[in-house]
Every structure is written in C-alpha cells, then in structure tokens.
C-alpha cells in the first residue's frame, strides 16, 4: 500500500485486489464469450441441437463476404453514418448552448436532454412510428407543401435514420458538453482579432478545439447504430435490413451460428479499427 500512496510505480496488493473483481467479471462474461464466437466463426453449421460442429473451415467467412451481402453492408454504413452526422448537427449547437450560455440553468437543460430517454426505447421508436405514419402529423405537415407520400414515411430509409438519430442523440451530446465546457473563450476573441470571420472561426478554431468530443460522440453513436436491429425492424421494412439484423437472423431464426459468428467478428473488427484510429486527443474524453 505504501508504494502506491507515495506515488511509486509498483503495484500493491490493494491495487490488484481492487482491480480483480472487474477484471474477472469482464474476463468471464466478455473476453471468453467473444473468443468463443470467434472460434465458432470457423466451425461448420449443424442444424441439430449442437449448432456448431467440426471440421473447422472458412466457409462462414466465404458466405459472409459474398457479394450478395454487400448491399446490406453499405446500407448499414449509410444509415449509421447519416445518423451520426445528424446527431452531430443537432447535438453541437445544443451542447454549446447548454455548456456556455445556460448559466445556472446548465444542469437543468443538460438533464432535460436525458429525460426523454427514460421512456422505453421501444416506446420512443413506436412514437416515431405513429408520428411518421400515413395519417400521422409529419406526413400531414408535408402534405401542406405537397411533399406527403402515400403510406407515410414509414418503411423508408429516412424513417430508420430519424429513429437512430433520436435513439442515440444523448451519447453525442454528453461528450460534446464536456469539451464545450473546457473550451477557452479567449480563443474566440483571438480568432476574431486575427481577422477570421464566423465561418473561419468555427472551422479553424471551434471545431478543432472540440474534436476530441466530436470523435468520442461519433463513436458512441456509430457503434450502437451499426448493431441496432430493433429500430430498422420497427421503422423500416424488408428493404431496410441491416448488418445487426442479419446477425440476429443467424442466431435466432436462421440457425446458422457459424455465419452469424463470422459476421459478428467482422463487425467487431470494423469497430476495433475505428476505436484504435480514434486518436490520442479523443482518449481524454473516451
């Protein structure tokens, strides 16, 4: 203990004892299960109760990387990137205002961002389903300017993106709030003094200053929206199947665990690349 409290680099018994429970938990319920799925991705499909059998092959990967799967891959990427961008566009002014202009209402307004998320995720998706339906308010308003469509906006790409944006907005706002609080306002004055206009200041001073929060927030929105199959299932149709939905099908309905595992490993690999690439400064926030 002495070594630790005195700022030594040595580990002490207390330090290890404090780390052990979380480490063991994640080892048992995270590392081992993910390793198991990685192993299954090389197995052969069994239609019986065993679900996976030897011999080990690359068949599942061959199937997963089949050109027929590619549209699902691109669609998922388009949905989650659009949702991330939408969260950024909505979340940045919100976080900036709450962090810097809300005065003593700061915490109230920040809390007000989180309140809607106490309603069940499904109820929120369902609310959008009602709002976007053919006779729902959104389609009626669009009808006033002649932009309504038969069947409403349900079962469209836009509906899925709206649902994902709504579902993960707080994950964008919270890291952005942190970096907006930290942002030194003197940088703004300096930028104006140096002759930058509003746009120059935003793109050359504000955005780079907030970059760690932007990266962290984007990751926190991107990752769950890639894996989310509930929102596309409820707001989209059969043409809106996403990557998460395909994995879900293999484990639940299709009963092809090796293919599902291979897809899960590919998804995990993509996320790992993004995580490693997030940059040193983003690590201060996430």
């Amino acid at each position, binding site marked *: 203990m002495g070594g630790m409290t005195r700022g030594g680099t040595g580990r002490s018994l207390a330090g290890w004892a404090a780390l052990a429970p979380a480490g063991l938990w994640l080892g048992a319920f995270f590392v081992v299960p993910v390793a198991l799925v990685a192993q299954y991705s090389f197995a052969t499909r069994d239609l019986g109760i065993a679900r996976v059998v030897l011999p080990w092959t690359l068949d599942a990967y061959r199937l997963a990387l089949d050109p027929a799967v590619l549209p699902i891959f691109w669609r998922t990427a388009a949905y989650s990137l659009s949702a991330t961008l939408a969260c950024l566009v909505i979340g940045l002014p919100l976080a900036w205002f709450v962090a810097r202009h809300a005065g003593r209402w700061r915490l109230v307004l920040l809390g007000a961002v989180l309140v809607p998320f106490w309603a069940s995720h*499904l109820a929120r998706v369902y609310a959008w389903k009602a709002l976007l339906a053919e006779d729902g308010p959104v389609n009626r308003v669009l009808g006033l300017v002649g932009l309504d469509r038969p069947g409403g906006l349900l079962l469209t790409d836009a509906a899925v993106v709206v649902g994902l944006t709504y579902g993960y907005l707080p994950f964008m706002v919270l890291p952005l709030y942190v970096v907006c609080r930290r942002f030194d306002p003197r940088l703004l004055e300096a930028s104006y003094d140096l002759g930058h206009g509003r746009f120059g200041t935003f793109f050359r001073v504000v955005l780079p200053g907030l970059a760690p929060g932007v990266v962290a927030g984007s990751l926190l929105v991107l990752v769950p929206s890639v894996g989310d199959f509930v929102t596309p299932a409820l707001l989209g149709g059969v043409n809106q199947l996403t990557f998460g939905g395909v994995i879900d099908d293999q484990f639940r309905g299709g009963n092809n665990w090796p293919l599902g595992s291979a897809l899960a490993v590919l998804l995990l690999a993509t996320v790992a690349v993004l995580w490693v690439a997030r940059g040193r400064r983003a690590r201060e926030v996430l």
Partner: protein
Amino acid sequence: MAQVDRGWRTARGRRRWVLPAAVVGAYAFLYAPILWLALLSFNDSRSVSTFTGFSLRWYAELLADRQVLDALWLTVRLAASTALVAAVLGTLAAWALRRPFRGRGLWSAVLAMPLVVPEVVLGVSLLAFFVKLAGVPLGFGALLAAHVTFSLSFVVIVVRARLAGLDPRLEEAAADLGAGPLTRWRTVTLPVLWPAIGAGAAFAFVLSFDDVVTSSYLSGVGGTPLPVLVYGQASRRGVSPEIVALSTSMVVLSTVLLVVAVLVMARRARHLDR
C-alpha cells in the same frame, strides 16, 4: 460567462438568433415524440391518429395486467442489482487505475471495451457462452452478467473523471495522520466519490432498465424483462397503449426526480454561499 463570451456575441451581431433557434429545434425534436406518447396514453381509443376523448383506462389496465407488472418487477430488480454490482466493481477498478503503473493503458482499454462493442455481438456471444460452454440456464443470472458487463464501463469513466479531480495529497495527509487504508477510503476517498458513484449507478440502472437487444437473447422461462416482452408484442401488433402509459409515467417520474435533484443542489449551493 456572458462577460467572457462578448466577443462571440458581438461578432455574431444580428445572427444572434441562429444558436437559440437551433437549440429550440433540438429540444422540439427531443420532446415531440414524448409529448405525442403522453397524449396517446390518455386517448380513449386504441388508435394512434385520432383522439376520441380523454380517458385513464390504459393506466387502469396497466395496473391490472399481471404479465406486464411481473415483467416490470423483474426489470426493476435486475436494474437495481446491475446498478449495485456495476457501482462496486467499477468504483474499485477506477480507484485502482488512479495512478500510472505498467499495464494501466491495457486495463483502461479492457474496461472501456464493452462500451464500443455492438450489443448484438455481446448478446450472441453471451448466448453461445451460457448455452454451449457454461451450461447455465438463461434467465436472471445470465441477464445480470450481461447488464453489468455493458454498464461497468460507464461507472469506471464517471468515477475516474471524479478521481482525477481528487488531490492525492488528501490521501497522503490522512496517511501521515495515521489513518489506515480502510479509514482513508472511508473518510477521504468515498465522500469525494459519492456523487460520481451515484451518477454511474443511475446510468447503469437506466441502461439495464431499457435494454432490449442483449436481453432478448438471454431471457429464460419466467425471466423476461419488460422491454423484451414489449418488443415481442411490438413486432407483431404494435406497442399496446398500456406500454405507452407506462413510458409516460417513467418520463414524469424522471422529470420529478430531476427537479428534486436541482432544487436540492440549488439549496446546497445557497447554503455554501452564506
């Protein structure tokens, strides 16, 4: 704040309405679906588009629906257990990581990993683990294992942020005054950490309470949390008005809690000013 930001404001000049407009728009986006839900919960009919009159019948049916209430009770127990376990494990881990040591980067990465793993991957992995490897029946235990796994990272992040602001000399001073490790923890570290632990536990509670994806793989006989039950219904014939009523109640409850928290904090702040 207003003083310091003057440069920004004057430079924006007449465009001063842009930021407030964007903020109002964002809150409208956040609250429109919630207000719509609240309206629907008082609607006399099952319809989602026409209001036939005010009624409390969905709230009454909610209170009479055994299946929903059982699932709700299971969900509350699960969320409370998750919050407790995640708070204890996460706080200990965050405390262990408060100083540099060899391997700290690796441990931090491992503790943050569940945060960036898509839920569907965690769900199917744990399904395979419990069914094929551990041979444990699905249900409460499996759900708890999963929920603590994905909420632990949040507790670690929040508590570490608070610990970063804790002056290490406080603990050293306590040690110099002869306090043992446990006394130091109890009298110096814990009092500073309570708000962060509470925030982390609240986060874990919400995450667990609302989880559909991971839980949908791990629900067992007699162990189906409410969101999984609702998802089963929703994909067949839409969310029932009872669930809309329940969600409305949850939002009202959280608003009340938020207001109380703000009032308490404001009172404490006034107290400190004196």
